[in-house]
């Protein structure tokens, strides 16, 4: 049984309202790489007749907006959709909250990263919590008995092919062929007929949080003025650096 984790993330196209300590998006959409993960899962279903379920994670603000992606996933062929409300928090807490639900699946897919989670640790954290292997940066997946053969992108056109024992979790990075198109009439009829099951999980506030230690930020100076002045100042600085 396959599960895909789909996260609601800020829609960057529509812009954000940035306040002092908070970023407020106008709109949320599903994380693109998570949608890729749905594509892979649906392909596996077509190829190996595996049951595929999808779970949508969204904060309070995005809780309604995740529905569309889940319906889209059903229209593409996913057998069952859940959604769960998880406040904005760290990957570790999400992993902790979901681990019980995810235990029953032998293949779990999600995007390697998300636009609001560039470190790409959610998949690895969940895998750690479940004590199963994790491979990120995945481009293709095939099932062979109780193993999974994945192709991991190494960059520069190189790939690493890995054979992993099930159960395992994979972070998806790309697709081999463009995503399938869902006719809107089909999507609309799915919206009318299909149901998304709401899941309740407990997010522990007092679990240990893993902190990411950032290197100190370099000093940045903006040079103002007309081009000649800027050139003059720039030359001064470079001279200082060289000498």
């Amino acid at each position, binding site marked *: 049984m396959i599960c895909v984790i789909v996260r609601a993330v800020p829609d960057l*196209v*529509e*812009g954000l309202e940035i306040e002092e300590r908070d970023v407020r998006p*106008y709109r949320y*959409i599903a994380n693109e790489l998570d949608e890729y993960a749905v594509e892979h899962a649906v392909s596996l279903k077509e190829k190996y007749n595996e049951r595929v379920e999808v779970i949508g994670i969204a904060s309070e603000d995005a809780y309604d907006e995740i529905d569309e992606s889940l319906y889209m996933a059903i229209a593409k062929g996913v057998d069952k959709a859940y959604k769960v409300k998880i406040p904005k928090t760290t990957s570790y807490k999400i992993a902790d909250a979901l681990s019980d639900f995810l235990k029953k699946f032998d293949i779990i897919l999600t995007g390697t990263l998300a636009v609001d989670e560039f470190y790409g640790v959610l998949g690895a954290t969940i895998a750690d919590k479940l004590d199963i292997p994790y491979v990120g940066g995945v481009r293709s997946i095939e099932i062979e008995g109780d193993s999974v053969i994945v192709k991991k992108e190494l960059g520069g056109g190189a790939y690493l092919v890995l054979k992993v024992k099930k159960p395992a979790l994979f972070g998806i990075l790309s697709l081999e062929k*463009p*995503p*399938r*198109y*869902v*006719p*809107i*009439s*089909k*999507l*609309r009829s799915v919206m009318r007929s299909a149901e998304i099951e709401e899941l309740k999980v407990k997010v522990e506030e007092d679990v240990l949080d893993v902190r990411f230690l950032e290197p100190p930020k370099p000093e940045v100076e903006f040079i103002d003025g007309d081009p000649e002045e800027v050139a003059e100042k720039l030359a001064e600085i470079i001279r200082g650096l060289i000498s």
Partner: protein
Amino acid sequence: MVEVLSESYQNKFGYEGLTRCYQCGNCTAICPVSDGRFPRRLIAHLRWGRIERFDEVWLCLQCKLCDEFCPRDTNPSLAMQTLKRISVENGSVPPHIGEFLMNVYRRRNPWGHSRMKRGEWMKDLNVPTVKDCEFDWLWFVGCANSFDSRVLGVTEKIARILNELEISYAVLGRDEGCCGNDVKRIGEDGLFELLMEENFKVFKRYGVERIITHSPHCYNTFKNDYNIEVKLFLELLHDFINDGSVELKHEFKKVVTYHDSCFLGRYNNIYELPREILRSVPGLKLVEMRSNRRTSICCGGGAGNIAVGYQGKVQPSILRVKEALDVNADVLAVACPFCKIMLEEASKSVNCNLKVLDVVDIVYHSMYGEGL
């Protein structure tokens, strides 16, 4: 891939002209982008309900040139639209068209620009919106004229002319959606219906009864699919030129040739209106290209190809620019934002001095002596 269609496909897609086809090949011979297989052979397949290889149907730009030449009223372009519908229903849509459709679905415009930014072009202009005034006419700006930098100038000029003529109008701004014309030509009827429902809701909310638009694509679908009262901005301009409210004072001493867009021309039989406007510009010399009026060829931007660009081997926009060069035109005049975008790109890619201008650009210049 061999797809055997159910017998009900004709009922399902409401297309009956197929049986009249006698396979004469006129459509294939006249089609500027045909790969030799379509439309004729696809129609033969469609007639027996057996389709091998859907793919080349996506070469079709829905320009209707073949309909014009079809001796049997088979309307090959409608048959191609039917095939596209079947493809869409099966989810087999080429990536560039899929991208177009998802952009329209998610962002209500072909390029996937932010919906919030639809009204941004009028930031520094005095353009009334439906929220803050009474109005007779809704100016439906359209996606290209709202977003694409290559035609934003035309949008601004239309705004100034409308203001100076004291037309009672307003725009929807951020609430404007996509008219869905090209979505329908692609055969994505579900999305088209969604857009139409949504647009009607918005029109109702703001009490819209009549629309003016500059885009032939919007014009066509409002007129023929929505059945709502719609007027072309050029019609308005034509009336005002005729009654003297618009004075064309400044000379435009150029050889101009006019490119008929599919949606003004073959879809709506508007051939002379833009030509009459051009002829009234002092100094302008109007010449005709080899393919003109009902035999005009498409710019390549129709049926969802505007977003990513036409993917076929033959670029009709380049053929068109060459035709304009053949008649020694300085200016290729268009009356459609999609044509302007496609033809301007083609003109740059063949590296020639042909300037692509909207009829509005030329009229504006003649009115105010500026803007070129």
